[in-house]
């Protein structure tokens, strides 16, 4: 029985571009494997040699500290070479360079490309032009699959399960890739998702994704197991999504008063970086008993190790040798 299970390819895709469309068993595969790396990462000697000789390139078209560092550590702890490339989008001719860069890196026999880009769909576009595996480390407002996986791992370790939990995601849902990936993952695994924020940041179209929508935070937090706060992108202030930080905090910032509507042991999460006093009160963020924010960062490395391992497995490659990339001139 177990031998049979090893024969089939548990993750039959070359890339990890998003959570949407992944069935529960594939999501669990990442979470279960990540679980084993949590322990390894707590040892004094954290480095293995599973990916010895492999090359991983972190290709970041958008600034990032924690995601990039997390992938870098993950790659190094598995024994692979990791190279970081930061391409400031402002200094390049748009897009042209995206494809050209992809082709260049492809020619260098990279095993995994970890890509972040400020445009929705850009990572998929790039993945069509390369032979290696691509991990989406965040594309525009579309998806951020490894963030959703690390959030799920954090929740699962604290609560022992995902199914049946009620998770509130609060803040700028409209522009958030973290929210989208979390909605797909949590609903697929049987959790209920609530989205909370002003109508300008939580439009009704999100109901189509299988989430419940609330515009009153007290109401939305009622009996929630998990409260996930998103970073408020204050640079959006000029677009009239909300009138001021002060007003935003009053109605949608997380403080103990609003939190009292949730379950007594409700877990507080935040993908970071936090704006203290904007979307979350410092006191709440630092509440060791309830905040899982630091644990999320720890889980990040374990989850990314699992992603790198699964995508570099030979079996996955063989299974998908038919999925050849489009040459430069192919349909797009």
């Amino acid at each position, binding site marked *: 029985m177990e031998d049979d299970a090893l024969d089939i390819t548990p993750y039959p895709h070359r890339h990890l571009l998003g959570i949407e469309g992944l069935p529960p068993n594939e999501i669990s595969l990442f979470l279960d494997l990540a679980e084993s790396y949590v322990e390894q990462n707590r040892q004094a000697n954290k480095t293995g040699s599973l990916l010895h000789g492999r090359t991983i390139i972190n290709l970041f078209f958008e600034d990032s500290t924690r995601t990039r560092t997390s992938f870098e550590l993950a790659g190094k702890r598995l024994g692979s070479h990791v190279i970081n490339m930061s391409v400031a989008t402002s200094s390049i001719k748009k897009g042209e360079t995206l494809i050209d860069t992809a082709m260049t890196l492809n020619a260098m026999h990279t095993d995994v490309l970890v890509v972040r880009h400020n445009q*929705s769909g850009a990572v998929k576009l790039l993945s069509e032009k390369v032979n290696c595996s691509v991990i989406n480390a965040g594309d525009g407002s579309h998806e951020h699959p490894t963030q959703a996986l690390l959030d799920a791992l954090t929740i699962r370790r604290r609560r022992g399960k995902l199914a049946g939990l009620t998770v509130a995601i609060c803040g700028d849902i409209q522009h958030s890739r973290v929210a989208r990936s979390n909605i797909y993952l949590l609903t697929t695994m049987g959790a209920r998702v609530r989205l909370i924020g002003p109508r300008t940041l939580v439009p009704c179209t*999100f109901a189509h994704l299988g989430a419940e929508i609330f515009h009153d935070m007290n109401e939305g937090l009622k009996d929630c197991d998990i409260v996930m706060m998103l970073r408020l992108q204050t640079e959006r202030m000029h677009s009239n999504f909300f009138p001021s930080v002060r007003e935003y905090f009053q109605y949608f910032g997380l403080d103990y008063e609003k939190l009292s509507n949730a379950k007594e042991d409700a877990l507080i999460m935040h993908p970071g970086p936090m704006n203290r006093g904007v979307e979350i009160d410092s006191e709440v963020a630092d509440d060791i008993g309830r905040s899982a924010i630091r644990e999320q960062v720890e889980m990040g490395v374990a989850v990314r190790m699992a992603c790198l391992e699964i995508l570099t497995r030979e079996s996955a490659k063989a299974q998908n040798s038919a999925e050849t990339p489009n040459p430069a001139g192919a349909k*797009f």
Partner: protein
Amino acid sequence: MSNKLSEPLGKVAYTNARLLDPKSGLDAVGGLLTEGESIQDFGPGLFRDGVPDGVAEVNCGGKCLAPGLVDIRVQLREPGDAHQGTIASTVRAATKGGVTSFVCLPNTDPVIDDMSVVEFIARRARKLGQAKVYCYGAITKGLEGTELAEMGMLSESGALAFTDGDKVVADAQVMRQALSYAATFGLLIVQHPELESLSGGAMNRGKLATRLGLPGIPREAEIILIERDIRLVEMTGGRVHFAHVSTSDSVDVIRRAKDKGLDITCDTAPPYFALNETAVGDYRTFSKLSPPLRAEEDRLAIVAGIKDGTIDAIASDHSPQDEESKRLPFQQAAFGGVGLETLLPVSLDLYHNGDMELLDVIGRLTSVPADLLGLTAGRFEKGTPTDLILFDPDEGWKVESHDLLSKSKNSPFDGRPVQGRVIRTVIDGRSVFGADA
């Protein structure tokens, strides 16, 4: 038969054809006789007793013979961006698609806000001896939406009507003056109906845009602008034509305005009755159009609007974009799709799906748009130039972008199986595409 411009044309008899002339309502098997560049005679009984001596015969084999298509919305990229399309490549694409006359938008570089540009394009196109190219003049100088262009003089030099192309005349006061001033000369204003401040997105607002994380363009952007301009037509007594309407509410609003007797017309383009937003799929930039592809209910309303005549004409909205403009992340990619070579077969969907009679579909592609702009093309009429197409409405083929003659290949119908193919295109009596060409 000859297609050399210099050689004189004799008499040609088109026999055994299904004659389709939407203007006169003719749909019958018969023949058509041309002499030199003009139509001499046509009708069901013609050549019953055989083709007279000295007349060349083209046996149509029972296929459809119709006036050449008149496409009232085409973007030329010459002068300006000839790498995306030249006058020559555009007329070749048109001719292959059965379009014998088309009207180009003024968004060339330089803009068609000056008589010299109208004349330049006319001269270039005439030399090629293929599809006839007409121009719209700009409503505002430089398409900047502020100062009116010299509509009177542009009209005298050949501009058929006025539009700011794929840019909306955003300022209500400018639009008011444009309608008013154009009405002085009985000129038509063509509007790209899209409220700019609501149109910052990349695709139709809704579930799919939410999923893909793309900013949406709400349908209200189109509806509000149409509603505004209808009020301005009422106020000024002007005449407006809305290009490429795409939403169900636009059709409703225009239907009501027409019922009130206002001088309002509109067209749509094949993507809006043959595709919906799902064509965007996973960030397919060939499906990024302006206006964006809408929801299925909108598509159905567009079909109904064409059927009941609320939507007068069908135009290709041919918008060439080079590969570099489309090989980008969706939000950064250019809007637009080429359409000259797919205009007929995709429009024939309306016939094949049982929505409309063949003759009616052809009418929306020929005499109706011609009448809107005061062209005498798009009909069979004795003594007028012989611009016609022979086509097989049933022949199936697959649209492949690399087979297109258009210099830019950005077809939203790439890969789509279609029915209906042009066999021969005749312009001024000469076969310029198909047999003998």
